[in-house]
């Protein structure tokens, strides 16, 4: 079997505690100290218009800068560094919007899987609503990403509406498209695992491109695999980890590493490991 590394062991121990790791990261993103560091982006999907946001949303900034025809070097640089290090591990372990969907997934309702091809919508979303539409039509276009983003609606518009209502001032409602998308999202999270991440998230689309080359990756040892297909059942995203351990659709929740033969584990490019197959040679 693959000699399990310290990293692999640590990851195996952390998997059952993933929701708590996500909750710990939430404390970083929710600005408990009131720092409001909006001169910098965070590598997660969290709206900067939220009253509780430490950093700026990289997707919002890329879209806004695209509308300004100004290169978002900080946001792109950050995503390249984080993507090269972790790939979509960020989605599974640090993203607050992912956490929300994971919590909703704990409600026992029937779940449906979207067709595999639907995952490509994320790239359409990224190229269309984050880059092309802002660049050619500006931030006023109704399909500008922030105008249709459910994270923006939930984390910014809703708290602001509540705040306005409590203060007794005139309530400014978001547009109908945004409200409709929010309603659809709130329904979908109870009937599909991570619908936003799997179907439309432009940030997940960017990180997924790094999955096959990132420093931390999912290691598969073919020599150890017993073809029991338990990993298929452990993966909630319809991926067959033994065929494609670093799939574009993977959010690296690492649930598949709980398969009993331990054929799958978290690895890094800096570790020396030898698989059973390699040692036999």
């Amino acid at each position, binding site marked *: 079997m693959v000699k399990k590394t310290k990293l692999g062991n640590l990851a195996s121990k952390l998997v059952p505690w993933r929701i708590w790791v996500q909750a710990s990261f939430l404390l970083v993103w929710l600005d408990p100290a009131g720092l409001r560091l909006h001169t910098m*982006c965070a590598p997660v999907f969290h709206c900067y218009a939220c009253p509780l946001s430490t950093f700026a949303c990289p997707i919002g900034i890329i879209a806004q800068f695209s509308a300004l025809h100004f290169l978002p070097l900080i946001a792109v640089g950050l995503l390249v560094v984080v993507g090269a290090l972790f790939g979509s591990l960020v989605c599974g372990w640090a993203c607050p919007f992912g956490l929300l969907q994971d919590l909703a997934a704990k409600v026992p309702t029937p779940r449906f899987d979207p067709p595999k091809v639907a995952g490509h919508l994320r790239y359409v979303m990224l190229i269309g609503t984050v880059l092309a539409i802002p660049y050619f039509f500006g931030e006023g276009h109704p399909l500008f990403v922030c105008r249709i983003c459910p994270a923006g609606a939930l984390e910014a518009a809703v708290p602001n509406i509540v705040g306005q209502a409590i203060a007794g001032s005139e309530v400014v409602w978001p547009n109908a498209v945004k409200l409709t998308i929010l309603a659809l999202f709130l329904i979908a999270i109870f009937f599909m695992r991570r619908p936003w991440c799997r179907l439309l998230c432009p940030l997940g689309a960017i990180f997924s491109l790094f999955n096959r080359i990132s420093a931390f990756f999912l290691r598969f040892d073919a020599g150890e695999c017993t073809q029991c297909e338990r990993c298929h059942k452990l993966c909630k995203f319809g991926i067959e980890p033994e065929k494609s351990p670093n799939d574009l659709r993977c959010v690296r929740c690492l649930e598949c590493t709980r398969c009993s033969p331990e054929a799958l584990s978290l690895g890094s490019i800096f570790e020396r490991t030898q698989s059973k197959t390699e040692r036999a040679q």
Partner: protein
Amino acid sequence: MDVVFMGTNNTKIIIFCVLILLGMVLLGYGAFVHSADVLPQQQDGSAIVAKSEPALIKEASVGGVTRDESGKIKQTYTGAAPKECAT
């Protein structure tokens, strides 16, 4: 630190190093050098201000800048900055 590079990992390590270097250069250039001239909201003789990229990120996060008809970046407010993004 005992870092051992395996032969099969060499390509991955090279790609990783190139990406990290690229990302750090982009981050550093964006944070310390990259800037844009921002026009005031009203053409009342106010000076054009050069804003760094971090300052522009902050402005963009509250809908404080827009692109005018001439293609220049323009402030959307005078005085205190808006509290939240218009979208």
